[in-house]
């Protein structure tokens, strides 16, 4: 194919790679984040490549290998990334970071309790490492005396979208997810689902940068992200992301309390 294209080149060093945790399908994530990477390219005067990963584990392996310059991930995974040379610069503003449990609108399940669980209940999660959708909702249910692994049949679907579509099609009875993913689903899917529980809030989803990035670039990224709400173009970017209130500056200390 080198012969076919006619020009092989050395590895381009000028690209910044923006790694996004595979919370949803890659195409959907691309639809959300490509406007943002476009805006970052204009701010940094360097191309920014949007990438995600097949699953959480792969994503974190790449984080550990420093394959991304900028990452968007959940608070729990960020605590690991921090150890591997990344630091948070902003986080999603406004909306509390909570996990939710959803059922079909016509489901008989309205309240979760250890004594009113129907037998053979099936629950679906995106990924074992999905913080809000899996870990926080599991913690929520365990705190209420529900032993998830014992009382329910657990299935992992790889992404938030898949977990939501699974409950929509009746493949599971309950799905663990979070509000941004629910809002990104088609309207008829949203209207067919019902939220039955919401976990206590945690620090919001962070955007972190690799420690070896130049300080001026980090400053420009931070400035861009925190000022998106001030411009029409910025609000359009946020509209694609589903984060209407934009980003605010965040610090590592805010995530000290995040634990699995």
């Amino acid at each position, binding site marked *: *194919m*080198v012969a*076919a*294209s006619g*020009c*092989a*080149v*050395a*590895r*381009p060093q000028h*690209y910044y790679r923006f790694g996004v945790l*595979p919370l949803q*399908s*890659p*195409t959907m*994530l*691309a*639809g959300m984040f*490509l*406007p943002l990477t*476009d805006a970052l390219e204009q701010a940094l005067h360097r*191309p920014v*490549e*949007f*990438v*995600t*990963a*097949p699953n959480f584990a*792969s994503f974190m392996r*790449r984080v550990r290998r420093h394959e991304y310059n900028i990452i968007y991930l959940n608070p729990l995974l960020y605590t690991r990334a921090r150890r591997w040379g990344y630091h948070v610069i902003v986080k999603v503003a406004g909306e509390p970071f909570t996990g939710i449990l959803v059922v079909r609108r016509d489901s008989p399940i309205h309240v979760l309790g250890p004594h009113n669980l129907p037998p053979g209940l099936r629950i679906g999660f995106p990924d074992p490492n999905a913080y809000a959708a899996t870990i926080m909702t599991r913690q929520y249910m365990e705190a209420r005396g529900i032993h998830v692994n014992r009382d329910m049949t657990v299935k992992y679907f790889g992404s938030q979208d898949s977990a939501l579509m699974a409950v929509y099609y009746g493949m599971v009875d309950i799905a663990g997810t979070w509000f941004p993913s629910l809002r990104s689903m088609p309207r008829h899917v949203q209207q067919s689902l019902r939220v039955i529980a919401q976990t206590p809030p945690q620090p919001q989803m962070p955007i972190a940068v690799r420690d070896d990035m130049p300080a001026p670039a980090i400053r420009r990224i931070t400035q861009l992200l925190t000022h998106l709400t001030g411009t029409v173009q910025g609000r359009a970017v946020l509209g*694609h992301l589903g984060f209407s209130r934009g980003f605010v500056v965040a610090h590592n200390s805010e995530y000290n309390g995040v634990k699995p």
Partner: protein
Amino acid sequence: MSVMELDRAEMAAAAEQQAPRLSIFRTLRFRLVLSVAIVHAVLMGAFVWSAVNKQSEAIRSELQNRAHSLITLMAVASTNALLAEDLGSLAEVTGRVKHLPDVIEGAILDVRGHVLASTDPHEVGHYLQVPRARTEIRGRHRLRLQEQIRVAGQRVGTVLLEMSTRHVQSELAATRDEGLLFILLALVVGSVAAWVLSLLITRNLHTLMAAVRRIGGGNLGVRVDLQARDEVGLLGNAFNTMAESLQRISEQVHSEHEKRTDAERLACVGELSASIAHEIRNPLSAVINSVKLLDRTDLPASDRAQSIAILNTESLRLQRILNDFLDFARIRESRLIEDDICALIGEVAGLIRQHPQAAAVTVEVECEVCPCPARYDPDQLRQVVWNLMLNAVQAMPDGGELQVRIVRRGRSVRISVTDNGCGIPDQLLDKIVRPFVTGRKQGTGLGLSIVQRILMQHGTTLSIVSHMNVGTEMSFELEVV
């Protein structure tokens, strides 16, 4: 066989021999075959060219569509895996593409040009500079396509695909060869068909042509029997009608000619009889008167001697007239042989030099080519030359020059006898060869008539050019061997 029938047979043979032989390129048959072959070649060529073009376009289009479908499918199938940098899934895509027909190479690149998957595993990990637009490049045997993978309007990667067109080329070549074969076949079939058709048409034309040649040779009894019911058949019928008409007219003409000839013969006999009577009457009257005088007993001796002298002179004259007339009447058929004319003329010239009337005449013989073989009857031609030379000598009673020239002219030889005598009056020139017409008192007027008859039997005539008090040239031509 009469003379006329003999002439007709000779004319027919001559016509057959002189019939022009057509070059094969000028024959109707050749032109018909050539026309059909050209029409076949042009029509089939155009048809095959159009068919091959359409098929070629269809084959190319099919390959192009297949390539576009495949690269689009690759782009769709690899979008998620590309965004997730799921190399395994991408490798699965390129692995499947690799085994499809005509695929040479396929690769999936991210937005940086980083090869994430390829049908050639050695290329994975390399970086390529790829255009940002969708492209299609046609090489000699390759079709290279490049399709961008776009999400939300933005390019996130590129799919490269290279397909071989050898299969297409071989199909096109096969189609072209098949077309050429069809053209060749059409040429052969068309030519054979045209040949057969031309045979059917020209067979009757050849029959007609042979009949026309025989008619041209004088055989007016020729008829054609064409079985065709087409235009050639109509032509054959028209030909038969024309031949019948010609034969009828010819017979009428022949009959009229015989009648006229008979009338001319009778007139000639009458004229001849009158001439003979006229020529004989005067000497005969003199003889009768002299005999009457001699019968008188009282005739003086001097008158008796004079009467006897007149009797001798006029009786000799009567004898000469009768001898010449017998010579004229007894001219036999010519027996032509091949012989040297120069020798004959030299011989006659020798005799004329010894003639008493030629004592003051200088006789010269010029032979351009000697010997000069020609076809003639030696006895008759000797008489012709003798008569002409004697005429010339008698035209110069006071002496002069007599020239005989033998000149070769192509396939003939011209013999001329020229004198510088008194010449022939103009009023006699056109009838000098008639019997008993002469410009001399002592002449019988049969010498040139004999010459003319003999020459006519040799297929030639006597030409006379004369100027009063300057001289006369008499000439004729003979066929050389």
